[in-house]
């Protein structure tokens, strides 16, 4: 294999490891971003469920005030609670569309609000404005208040369950994000160690494979340059040096050159002593 190809393959191996580490960490980072969005959405759901819960409690409180003869303040609180609940309801119906279990729970609360809560509030208003005597009115109002409190209580329980589920989801998302963060850290450390080890190994191996034969060749060249053509060491070295790359070609050329020197020397001495009769 040619030296350039060896170096290129080594480089590609290290680049490949960097790419693998980068891809893994990027994937983990993307997952962490997804989980962060999930946690944010769940917190938003939790806040809106809490607002809806507060709205229900305010309706109950406003109705109590209304029934206690503070009609204007009671009406104001009931209207204000509706203003809090409406955007929360819209948000929750959209946000929980992908979570059938929580959506079913929230729909129960909406149904309680539309039927039991609003029904009780309307009944109390009708009773309060009717021409019945006060005793009958208060007995009827108390009965409706009792229905209202039961409905609000049920709604509170369901919304508390929705909120605890969303908090659990936030916690799960945080744990998963932490796991991805830990995995990224481990991947970074492992790949860094692996890349460092492979880089050092390749540097040492490639360096010795390239410089080792060149050093041997340089030693031979030095001896030949000093006129040492009779030694056979360069042939032995030639057997030792088998790298299959440009160094092999260089060794072959050098060996041929030394042979040419030796032959030229033998031919020039030929007149004095024929080659084939020389002692070996």
């Amino acid at each position: 294999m040619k030296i350039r190809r060896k170096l290129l393959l080594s480089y590609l191996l290290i680049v490949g490891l960097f790419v693998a580490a980068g891809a893994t960490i990027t994937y983990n980072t993307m997952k962490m971003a997804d989980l962060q969005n999930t946690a944010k959405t769940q917190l938003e759901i939790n806040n809106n469920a809490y607002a809806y819960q507060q709205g229900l409690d305010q309706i109950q409180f406003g109705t109590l005030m209304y029934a206690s003869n503070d009609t204007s303040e009671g009406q104001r609180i009931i209207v204000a609670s509706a203003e809090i609940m409406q955007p929360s309801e819209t948000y929750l119906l959209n946000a929980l569309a992908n979570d059938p279990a929580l959506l079913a729970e929230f729909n129960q609360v909406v149904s309680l609000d539309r039927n039991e809560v609003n029904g009780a509030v309307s009944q109390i208003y009708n009773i309060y404005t009717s021409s019945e005597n006060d005793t009958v009115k208060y007995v009827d109002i108390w009965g409706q208040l009792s229905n209202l409190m039961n409905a609000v209580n049920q709604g509170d329980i369901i919304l508390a369950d929705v909120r605890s589920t969303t908090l659990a989801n936030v916690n799960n998302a945080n744990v998963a994000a932490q796991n991805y963060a830990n995995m990224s850290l481990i991947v970074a450390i492992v790949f860094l160690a692996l890349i460092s080890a492979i880089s050092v190994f390749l540097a040492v191996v490639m360096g010795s494979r390239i410089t080792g034969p060149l050093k041997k060749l340089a030693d031979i060249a030095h001896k030949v340059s000093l006129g040492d053509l009779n030694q056979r060491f360069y042939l032995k070295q030639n057997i030792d040096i088998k790298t299959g790359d440009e160094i092999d070609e260089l060794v072959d050329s050098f060996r041929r050159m030394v042979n040419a020197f030796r032959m030229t020397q033998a031919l020039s001495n030929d007149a004095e002593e024929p080659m084939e009769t020389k002692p070996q």
Partner: protein
Amino acid sequence: MTIEQDCLAVLAQELGPAAKSFLLRQCRSHLNKEPATLEKSDIENLAKWCQAGIQMAIGAQVAENVRKGILALKQKP
């Protein structure tokens, strides 16, 4: 290619620039002819003398390589 050129090609693999003068020397000394007049029938003798000459000057391994290379020229059409 002539036989001379073929032989030079084989010898140049081991002897480089000394191939031509070595072939000339072997042809004149042992075959009593010029390299340009080499024929197929001379190949065997030439291989033998080249081997002998190279063995003395360089070594047995190179000599054997050259001998085989020159003998292979016999098979060439």
